């Protein structure tokens, strides 16, 4: 199957990515690098890759149970006993946040 620019844009929306050329940052190789986020180009590239994946249809799989993990002996759930999260109080979890508000992660107003 082929992916058209409209479908590419819809997939990008689901993935929380921008393809529009006017998007800030624009999808180079890092913050601020302008360029490649164009729906047509991405659609062409995806069509080529997804087209190749259609070789899977040549494989007879009726009655084959899908294998989502190679684990043969999954770990049983452990007892639900609270433990220290890393060192100290766990405040370090906030240390990597780009913006915080007191002891909370901060996001734009949603109401």
């Amino acid at each position, binding site marked *: 199957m082929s992916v058209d620019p409209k479908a*590419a844009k819809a*997939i990008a929306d689901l993935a929380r*990515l*921008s393809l529009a050329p006017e998007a800030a940052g624009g999808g180079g190789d890092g913050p601020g690098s302008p360029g490649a986020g164009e729906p047509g180009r991405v659609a062409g590239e995806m069509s080529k890759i997804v087209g190749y994946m259609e070789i*899977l249809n040549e494989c007879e799989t009726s009655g084959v149970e899908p294998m989502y993990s*190679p684990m043969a002996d999954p770990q049983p759930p452990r007892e639900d006993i609270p433990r220290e999260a890393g060192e100290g109080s766990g405040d370090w979890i906030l*240390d990597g*946040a780009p913006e915080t508000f007191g002891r909370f992660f*901060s996001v734009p107003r949603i109401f």
Partner: protein
Amino acid sequence: MASDPRLARLDLAQAREGLLKGDFTSAELVGAALDRVAETEPALQACLCVLGDQALRDAARLDAGGPDPAMPLWGVPVSVKDVFLVRGAPTTAGSRMLEGYMPGFEAEVVTRLRAAGAVITAKTNLDEFAMGSSTEFSAFRPTRNPWNLGRVPGGSSGGCAAGVAAFQAAGGFGTDTGGSIRQPAALCGCVGLKPTYGRVSRYGIVAYGSSLDQAGPMARNVRDCARLFAAVAGPDGRDSTSSRVPPEDLSALSPPEAKGLRLALPRELWEGSFDAEVGKVLDSAKGLLASAGISLETVGMPSLRFSVAAYYVIAAAEASTNLARYDGVRYGYRTPSKGDLLSLYRESRTAGLGREARRRILLGTFALSSGYYDAYYRKAAQVRRLIRDEYARTLEEYDFILAPVSSIPAWPFGSFTEDPLTQYQLDVMTLPLNLAGGPGLSLPAGLGGDGLPVGVQIMGPHFREKALLEAGILLEGIFPRLPEPPLKAL
């Protein structure tokens, strides 16, 4: 004071002997490794972060307590790919998204390495989030191959392989999702082990494909790989994908007899088109094995024809899920522009993630989306079972599977960066094993006429790394020994 350059070239067994006898201290050994890093890094660019002061402090602390024979890696310098969380060092996973991220905890692999007495000297370069086969998709810089600085080192654990090959560390740890340990090891002329899925804890490793990722060692010989592996293998209650199968005792390894050993050579991996130099080395390797009395038999594994397609559906699906966490809120890059929550997500992710990471997220989102899930993701998972079953059947009949690692040697920079599908197809030799979940060991088979190393891999039954490593020791003794890499552009 300048260190003794010979110290950096010692293998782990020699380093351990010298340390325990007191011929040199851990600080001297680690100092020699760090000097070698300083000397070679301008050419190689193998490291994203060198832990100079921290490593020297760790070494001095070990020296103060004196050599401890109970610690199998006491005092030796080890590098780790920059997906392992190391306390006190930034973890970027090769992405601008995580630039400056300081983890609050440590990967279980690193904790076990420290408990075994190892000193972590550097965090090595990789393709962004381990997605790639050349390190060219590192957001920071590509690593160069020590055998020819104009060539890629392979990937995604390319920094680790280049550094180990160039004596920056006695050994290192990478991760292998579709060949990311075995392929760079082969392209850089070192040994790399991808353990069985579930054998090594994934706790504290930046995730890419959660049903495929497995951490493992790289070193300059098989026994060193075994030493590094033994220090980290075994169950971890903090990783739900860690197996409870008890680890094997690897303290004594004896290679099997060549006569009577039966290797299966899958037609699907040996009958493709090969670079001429690679083909010559592979032919010569097969000749050497046969002369030694090892039986080589061609077998059919017809499902391997579907492995690249199945792998890239599954890996992309898992990548899109794992990378959903990079949202500009909890860690990593956040767009400075002020919009609503959705545009915060979109703009942070679009700017913070590189080209290949975004491509795989889009592919994975497509494969998991309603309407396409059954045709792609479920179908790929069915094919995966067929591939796993073929491995199991082949290994019931043969001791190991023998295969090339790459059909081409280390390639010039830029060869495939604009052609993702061709680059994906180059992974055909290595990625079926990740789908099957078993262990594989890549080791040098010789040097091509172009001066570039060529590797082969052997693959064995799940959780039987000991036999695999022992067979690796046998093969290593049969294949020619590589010279020191020249660190020049040829």
